[in-house]
């Protein structure tokens, strides 16, 4: 007769051993912070589409480690809430990787936490150059405004435009765009006659167009956040006769993102933009990505650039998990992806080892009508392997 105490001890030992065996295949948790509700919910949906498209195509596990994605909602630029959400994800949910972040101030608020948390942050969107300098554990797979704007300076000169008036929205990315364009355009021999900064809540752009007309500029460079301001600006440009007068319009792709093109309609046709991704990009990777992401979104018209930032961000996270074997080691993870190169749906990309920002092709696109009558961004020129000029000293 085995004594009861011995039986109990043996049972406990077995349970403990079984517990240890299952613990070797851990679940790696990834926390994604994005605008899943509120005015920017469409962009948050794009984040989710990119993440789920990647996981659908590449499986939900890396080297035996299951991957669990936790989404946290941050509807607007709110640094205090961003910090709180990041802390909650790290401490309570025990995530190994943080991803997402649409707005720059939120990324800036999260960066100081990373060292102590031993968690890298992969940015899917926030586009100000200085973010990657806030912490050595920040990697970005989206773009910067400086990166997408700089080629436009050369394009403007080549289109015979010597005098440009710049009109940007008065906030971080807008000022970045203005400075980047000015630098590139003046380096190519052009002159920025006037630099207008418009308040974020401007809805009536006719007075601005009047100033454009009065300045005698041959071209306008514009940057506005996507949504109502963009529509108003483009419409005002057409309605006040500037388009007919031959004034050229240059902008970053934020103004003509595919989800806004149906609302802009015919008024947008002919606008030249510089950007890192067009849904119409012709490559097998993009075809597969668009198919997978559209399946998640449900409506193909919603697909836009944040989805590709998320898709590539997940690729980087998967590579990090592979390199660390599912263990939490932020420095090893980031070191492993420095210099990583792969074929993204947007084109060939790589992570710059010094800045941890993505080096990629920037395309010059023109808004045109596709064969199905719908507007799209047609890539007409490629500027290869562009780094972030905002960080180049």
């Amino acid at each position, binding site marked *: 007769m085995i004594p009861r105490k011995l039986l109990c001890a043996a049972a406990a030992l077995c349970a403990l051993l079984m517990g240890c065996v299952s613990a070797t295949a851990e679940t790696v948790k990834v926390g994604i912070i994005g605008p899943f509700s509120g*005015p920017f*919910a469409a962009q948050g949906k794009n984040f989710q589409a990119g993440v789920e498209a990647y996981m659908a195509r590449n499986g939900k596990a890396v080297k035996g480690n299951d991957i669990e994605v936790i989404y946290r909602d941050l509807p607007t630029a709110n640094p205090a809430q961003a910090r709180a959400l990041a802390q909650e994800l790290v401490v309570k949910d025990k995530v190994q990787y943080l991803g997402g972040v649409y707005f720059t101030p939120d990324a800036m608020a999260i960066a100081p936490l990373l060292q102590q948390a031993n968690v890298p942050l992969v940015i899917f969107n926030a586009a100000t150059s200085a973010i990657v300098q806030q912490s050595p554990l920040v990697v970005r797979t989206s773009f910067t405004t400086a990166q997408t704007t700089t080629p436009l300076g050369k394009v403007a000169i080549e289109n015979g435009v010597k005098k440009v008036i710049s009109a940007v929205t008065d906030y971080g990315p807008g000022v970045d765009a203005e400075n980047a364009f000015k630098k590139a355009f003046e380096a190519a021999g052009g002159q920025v006659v006037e630099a207008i900064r418009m308040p974020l809540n401007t809805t009536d752009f006719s*007075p601005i167009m009047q*100033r454009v007309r009065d300045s005698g500029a041959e071209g306008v460079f514009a940057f506005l956040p996507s949504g*109502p301001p963009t529509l108003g600006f483009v419409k005002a440009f057409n*309605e*006040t006769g500037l388009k007919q007068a031959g004034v050229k319009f240059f902008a970053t792709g934020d103004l003509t993102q595919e989800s806004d093109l149906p609302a802009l*309609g015919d008024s947008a046709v002919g606008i030249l933009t510089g950007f890192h991704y067009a849904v119409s990009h012709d490559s097998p990777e993009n075809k597969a990505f668009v198919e997978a992401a559209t399946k998640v979104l449900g409506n193909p018209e919603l697909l836009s650039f944040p989805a590709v930032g998320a898709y590539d961000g997940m690729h980087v996270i998967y590579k990090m998990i592979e390199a660390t074997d599912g263990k939490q080691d932020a420095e090893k993870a980031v070191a492993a992806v420095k210099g990583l190169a792969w074929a993204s749906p947007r084109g060939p990309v790589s992570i710059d080892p010094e800045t941890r920002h993505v080096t990629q092709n920037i395309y010059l696109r023109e808004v045109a009508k596709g064969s199905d009558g719908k507007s799209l961004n047609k890539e007409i020129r490629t500027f290869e392997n562009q780094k972030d000029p905002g960080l180049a000293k």
Partner: protein
Amino acid sequence: MQSILSIATDALAYSMALFIICIGLSLTMGLMRVVNLAHGAFAMIGGYIASYVARDLGLGYSVAIGLAVAGTVLISIPVERFLIRRIYGSSELTQVLMTIGITFCVIGITNYFFGPTLKTIPLPSLLAQPVDIGFRTISAQRLFVMLCGVAVAAGLWFLIEKTSFGIKLRATVDNAAMTDALGVRTQVIYGLSFALAIGLAAFGGVAGAEFLPIEPYYALRYMVLFLVVVSVGGAGSILGTVVACLLLGAVDTTGRYLMPDFGNFFFYAAVIAIVCLFPRGFLGRAQ
């Protein structure tokens, strides 16, 4: 000189769009003494209905306007009957709380059904083309808005000064109890006035969609703007609202031309100055 005329034209178009939306709020606040912060929400609903009818159903612009006004008024009837009627005569705080609550509900509902992107109202080709008025080209739609603003002002003036409904309305405003005692059905007058105000809001939402784009947060975004215009003009006065819209529209447009960086500063500076000089607005009535 061209610049001055151009600014004046833009200011006039913007003022008229603002006028059509705000006159309804002026009526509600001045005549019915209800601080209706949900006014912008009804303008937004009008815009959404018009966008749906014109874009998704493909019917014409005039049909869209008609259905938008009718639809919004229909929606406002139960809101007035069950919610607004409770707050007639209540303290202003109660009215604000109720109407802001309605605003947030409307925002949530439109966001859920229509999504967060902005909706445009496709214009007929007649209105979409630029028109050369000599010193510059202007969108025909803006000329249309100006005409509508003038028409609304004239029509309301006629309604209030020259019709029997207008007489009953003015009587109800001056002394509701006495008017009721004289046999006028004040509840009906209130209901009709509210419907008129909401109908104008919906019309303004559609006509002004070029200046104030239709998206779920419209109701909240422009709430202060509408409230300020009505307060400066004096609640309940058509002429006051016209003057306020023209003046504030001019200040805003000129300010944004001369110094765009300053944004709304000039607008609100003008508001502060005017309210200091005219505490009840330009032509507001004594309470």
